[in-house]
Each structure stands twice: as C-alpha cells, then as structure tokens.
C-alpha cells in the first residue's frame, strides 16, 4: 500500500508548464455540474478540480486555510452564504463585462464579489382537488384559518425557509414576520420533518393540502416516473406566490465568486463566465430544473406549465444580512 502522498495534488505554483487548472470549492453536487465542468474543460482545456461539501464546513475550511487556500472559485447554493463569504473576506471583486451583461443586478453583489448563476423559487405546492389556486396566491395566505392543520413545511434549519423569512423581514420588518411565522406554526399539519420531496409526497397521501417547497424539487418530482411518486404527481399543482403588496416570488440563487487567494484567477473568471453563458444556462434549466438567471433563456417546460416566474426584486445581498434575524424569529415562533 502506498504511503499517502504529502503535499497538494493540485497544481503547484512553481511548475511553469503545468496543465491549466481551476480549483472549485462547491456546495452543489449535481450531475449537471459535472457535465458543465466537462464541457468547460473541453472548450478551454482548463481542468476543473473539485471538492464538494456542505457550505458551512467549506467556509470553515476556507477560514483555516487562509492565504494558503487552493480554492479559485467558491460555488454555493445560497445567496446568504455568498454574502457571508464576502463579509469574511473569502472573495475578491472581479470586473467582467460578460458577467455584468449576463447576470441581472439584483442577483449579484454590488461590489462584484459574487454572481448568481441559477435560481430556485420558494413556491406553494397544493392539492388541486381541494385547494382553489386563488387561495394560495400569497405567502400570507398560508397562515389563514382555512389551512389549519393542512400545511406541510420543512424545519427552520432548511436554508430556503431561512432565506424566505429573511426576505420577509427585509420587506415587512421583524414584528410582522414573527406574526407570519407564528401563523405558519399554528397551521402545520405535523412537526416539520424530511426534505422537500417528502412534503410533496405527503400531499399525495392526503396528509396536508399545501406545502412550502423549492421549485427545483417540484421539477424533479414531476419528471420522476416511479410509481411511488404517482399519487403526488397526480394530486399536485403549483402556485408562484407573492408577498402582499409586492409583485414577485421569493427566489434564492446558486452563485459563484473568485476566491480571495485564487492562484488561477483568470481561469476562475473564465469558468464563472462560462457558467453564465447561454449554453450553460440552458443546462441549468433543462438538466437541473433551475431557473436561468440570464434574461432570454427559457425555464424548463415542466416549471413553465404553472405560469411564468416573476421574481421578487429584493437585492439578494439582503438575505445574508438578515439570515441570523430570520433564524431567531423562527425560533421565537416555535418553528422547529
């Protein structure tokens, strides 16, 4: 058995003719990412080396590595974490006309530290046989007496629940949001448990009538052909809700930034630009049921079937700033 090699496997700075690489720390584990990285490698000749792990742990690894970090690109699936990376000084600003053109302003950092690359919307899945679409047009509607004991939702530990509550705090302030959270807790059909898919399966089983879920998992469930998910597929419809007085649905992004101590900065920028291109955006949309950020690229037909997504125009940087407050509000409301 070989002794484990000491020293880094990735590129060494001194070796001049070394093959071109870009080192990615990712919190996404999707098959489409592998495909996109392979496409990138093919078109540019730059090899993508990957570590994927849970994002908070990735952040602690970045913190421990400091200036020695081998990360070139940081890729996470939550705008809050991107904001945190910026705050912690893990990212550096980059100027890229390509990125500025491809990524709308509210989906990127003001100081060009990070760029959103694909979106998920927090939407309402409902039982189309029991619920009128008009009853689920807003997030506030979920707290109505009508849905007492009928609401299915994940725990407050779920990032997307946190970012939704953070967005509400940004729009309405703490008190009103606390009231909403209490309303959610009062209407829960059961203690929060399981993942997003579990909430939709529960609708199929008649355990609840409405569920707060991520658009990504809806797309996955509706295109899954296994019989175990048949009941949920048959029963379910989707509403893109808005917040009272505002015109858009809450979205969060997967996004990327160039690491502060990137050793391959040019390659890093190339990779992020590539991910914002039409071709890559289409892969996010069709291959992974995410909404493209680039205007003009269409969402997957499965998701378009329920209407066109109109995004809440809140600057996503706010989500990071308010996430802690959101956790506390949810805790105070008794949201497990």
């Amino acid at each position, binding site marked *: 058995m070989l002794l*484990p090699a000491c020293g880094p*496997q990735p590129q060494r700075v001194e070796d001049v003719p070394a093959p071109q690489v870009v080192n990615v720390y990712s919190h996404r*584990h999707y098959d489409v990412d592998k495909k996109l990285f392979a496409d990138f490698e093919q078109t540019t000749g730059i090899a993508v080396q990957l570590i994927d792990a849970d994002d908070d742990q990735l952040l602690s690894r970045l913190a421990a590595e400091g200036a020695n970090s081998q990360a070139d690109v940081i890729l996470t699936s939550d705008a809050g974490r991107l904001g945190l990376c910026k705050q912690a000084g893990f990212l550096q600003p980059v100027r890229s006309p390509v990125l500025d053109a491809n990524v709308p302003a509210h989906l990127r950092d003001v100081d060009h530290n990070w760029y959103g690359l694909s979106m998920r919307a927090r939407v309402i899945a409902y039982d189309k046989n029991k619920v009128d679409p008009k009853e689920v047009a807003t997030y506030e509607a979920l707290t109505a007496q009508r849905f007492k004991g009928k609401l299915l939702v994940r*725990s407050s530990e779920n990032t997307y629940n946190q970012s939704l509550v953070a967005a509400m705090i940004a729009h309405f302030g703490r008190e009103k949001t606390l009231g909403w959270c209490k309303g959610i807790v009062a209407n829960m059909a059961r203690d929060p*448990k*399981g993942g997003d898919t579990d909430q939709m399966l*529960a609708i199929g089983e008649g355990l609840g009538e409405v569920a707060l879920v991520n658009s990504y998992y809806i797309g996955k469930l509706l295109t899954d052909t*296994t019989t175990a998910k048949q009941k949920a597929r048959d029963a379910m419809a989707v509403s893109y809700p808005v917040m009272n007085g505002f015109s858009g649905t809450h979205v969060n992004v997967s996004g990327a930034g160039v690491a502060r101590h990137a050793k391959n900065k040019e390659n890093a920028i190339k990779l992020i630009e590539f991910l914002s291109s039409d071709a890559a955006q289409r892969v996010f949309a069709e291959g992974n049921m995410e909404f493209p950020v680039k205007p003009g690229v269409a969402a997957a037909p499965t998701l378009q079937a329920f209407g066109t997504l109109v995004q809440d125009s809140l600057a996503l940087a706010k989500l990071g700033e308010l*996430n802690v407050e959101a956790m506390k509000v949810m*805790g105070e409301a008794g949201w497990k």
Partner: protein
Amino acid sequence: MTRTLSILAAIAALLLCLPIIAVVAAPFYNAAPQWDYVGGAFLWQHLTGTFLLLAGTVTLATVLGVGSAWCIAMFDFPGRRFFSWVFVLPLALPTYISALAYAGLLGPTGTWSVLVDDLFGFRPDIMNLPGLCIVLALVLFPYVYLPARAAFSAGLTDAFDASRTLGASPMRRFVAIALPLARPAIVGGAVLVSMESLNDYGAVKHYGATTLTTGIFRAWGGLYDQGSAMRLASVLLVLVATLLITERLLRRKGLRTADHRPMRRTPIAGSVRATVVVGCSLLFLFSGALPIGALVCDAVSVADPELFSDLGVATMNTLHVGAWAAGITLVIALLLAWSERFTKRNVARSAWLARLGYVGPGAVIAVGVMSLAGGLDARLATMGISGRLLLIGTLPLLVYAFSVRFLAVAAQPINAGLAQQSIALDEAARTLGASPLRTFFSVNLPLLRPALIAAVLLVVLEVMKELPLTLIMRPFDFDTLSTAVHSHTRIEQVREAALPALAIVLCALLPVLALDRLHGRPRQ
C-alpha cells in the same frame, strides 16, 4: 526503555488531544456573537432532546443486546448459529442509511405506512423521537451484543455450577451472577452506543429531532456563528467526558474471573423455544433483513453499469484511508494501554482524554484539526516553503483526523481485553525477571490477539461509514463510498444513493463477520 516508551505514549496522546483541546479552548478566544441567544432556551431545548434520545436509544440497545446475547450464549435452539452472526450485521449499516430506509417504509408517506393505512385505517409514522430511538437502537445494539455474548460465553461455568447445586433459579443466576460478571463488557458496549447516538447527525436531522449535534450545525449554519457552535461542541465533549469517567469507575469495580471454560448451552423446548426463535427472527428481520433488503431493491432499480466504475475507485479510496487510520490508531492505542498498565505516571492515566475525539461530531473534529493545520501551514508559508508542504487537503491530514476521531474505537477492545487479563499474570512474569516490555510482548499481547484484530476491523468499519469529516477534509476529486452516498441523499435522490450504500454494507461485511468470529469464541 520503559521511560522512552511512556514518553512516546504521552506525546502520541497529546498529538491526538490537540484538535479536541483546540475545540474546547475555542470559546475562550473566539467571539460568539449569538451566544446570548444560543446559550439560553436554545441550549436547553437541544440538551433535553439529547438526553431523551440518549436514554431511549441506550436503554433499548442494551435490552436488545443483552437479551440476544443471553439467548445465543445460553440456549440451544434451531437457527442459533445463524442468528449468532446475523445479529452482528447491523454494524455494517451507517445509521443515516438505515434511517432513510426506515423512513421509506414507515415514514408518513412510506410504502408500508400507506399499506397499513389502506388496510386498517391508521398510519404509522416512525419519523419522530421515539421512532428515531428505535431505528438507532436496531443499528447500534450489536455494540452491546458482541461483548455481552463474549462475556456470557466464557467465564461463568464454575459460578453457574455452584449456583445450580445451591438451587438458584435461571433468573437468579442471570441477575446475581451473569450480569455482574458481564457488567464491564455491557457498560463498555453501552458507552459506544451512547457515543454513536451523541454524534449522529444525518439520522437525527432527517427525523426532525433536536440534539446538541443538530444545535451545533444550526448555530454554525443558520446563525453564522462558529463561536457558538464550538461552545455547544464543548458542552457535548464535557458530556462525553463524564460518560467515559463513569465507565472507568465502573470498570475498576468490575469483577474479574480466572475461569475461561466455555459455557455449556441448555437445549430448550416448547413455548420457551418458540418464544426465543420468534424473538430472534423478529430482531433479525428489523435490524438487518429489512433495511438491507430495502437497499437491495433500490439499488437494483437504478443499477447502471456506468456507476460501477466510480464505485470501484471510491471503494479503493475508502479502504486505503481506512487501513492507514487503523494501523496508526492500533499502534497508539497499544502504546497507551501498555503505559497505563505498567507505569503509574499521571500522563498515562489521563490518556483517555485522547479518546474524546470519538464523540465530537466529525465536522467539529475537522474544524479542530483544520485550525491547527491552517496555523501550521501559515507558519510554513512564512518560512518560504508554501505550495510544497500544505497540510489541509492532503491524505495524511485526513488520516490524522480519522485517528483523532477513532482512537477510542481501537482502544476500547484493547483496554477491555487487557482488563480481563489478571494482574497476577504480569506479576508472575515480572517475578521471573521479565521487563515490563517483555511481559507485554510475550504475555499480554498474544492473549490480546482477538482484541487487536477487532480493533483494526472496527476502525476500518468506522472510517468506511464516516461522512462529515471525510467530506470536508478530503483532497480534490477524492470520493469515498460515504461521500458518494451523500452526494445523492443531499439532493433527495434516495434510490440512487442505494448503490454506494450497499457497497459500504458489502465491504463492511467482512470486518463484521470477522468480529463475530473473534467475540465469544471460547478462549484457551
């Protein structure tokens, strides 16, 4: 020589302690901006959950483990040999995988729950705290079963013969003789069960329970407060330190026996036999057959030849790091056990501190290790050798982290094995002029062989199942079987996760079966 070795032992122990010290010390120098919130009701809520989970799981696992061990060791009945090894199988299942399999069957939308609902009009739901205790106990009971079976199988014969002539009932023999004699073994197993439940994250989170471990991640992830997370980790470590000290105290008071004759099993018949056979069958069904069967079904439904090549690489990676971690922990555990037995130094006595790593959730240990290594890397960089000798993201550092985390796993069978060897043995050798070292090598070590093999296999098994630490500390493009499982379960692809999960179970089968042979075979 003795002196050198005990200094070496102290250094090794210190090296493995460092990351834990880094975690425990973190609260003193790290800011914890959200502690006002985390240290209040939040902490109590998570502590309560932890105690409930611990009480439920440990009680149930002990009852199952002792009960099954008693039946296997004491009675002859159809299928005894079969049950004797299949009760070890659950050790091959990572808790998060078993929990997922059970949720798929008996969760609110599980296949069986739906079936029961259609037939009887009520819907079982295992995804709550009591359900979690049951699922964990079904996976973890072999930790009690194995040592208890070993203790019941040998060493009781003389006492039993005596008690029988005195007219003691079987029940009285169990309570008054078997339990006290097997107590160190049972307590040792129960401690392993409690440590496993304390650091469990995947299963606990999926079932919606709140424990200190989920609290750590809630503070870290949701509140962006690593300082508070580390404080919670310190609370957890203090809890475990208490457990370990208790075990040591109990072990010291334990009875020892010089009787190594194997137990003569009693044939049973009639209703007793029926009860034992049915009980054993049910235990096998729920602890092994059902979750593994569910995995096989899922794996078959998604089997795709392309997936197998990735699987091969991941398997080799897993075994590679596993073997290294096992070798290192074994040597250090022996060194510590030796100096604990032969030198009276306080350093040696506090060696158990190095075993605390077992309970820190993997991610916390990783933070401890990485903060040390990061500091070292920065120091190296200022010396101008940066880029050549980085530690973070290398296999040696990963193996070191595994050693920190799993020293206790290697130490447990070794210490228990040594504890069973009467000091009179050492004294006889010493009287004949043998040095402590020679005594250890020619008297203690040969007798310890089964424990040594057990130690190696257990560590490999743990490395195979470990997830969070591997996930965060691995080099670029380095997948193990457990990270392969994770990459699917994270995005709720439960069926796709079944293939690597099954690979873990299959790889783990070998060590698990070997463990079965090592425990409870009559010693010479």
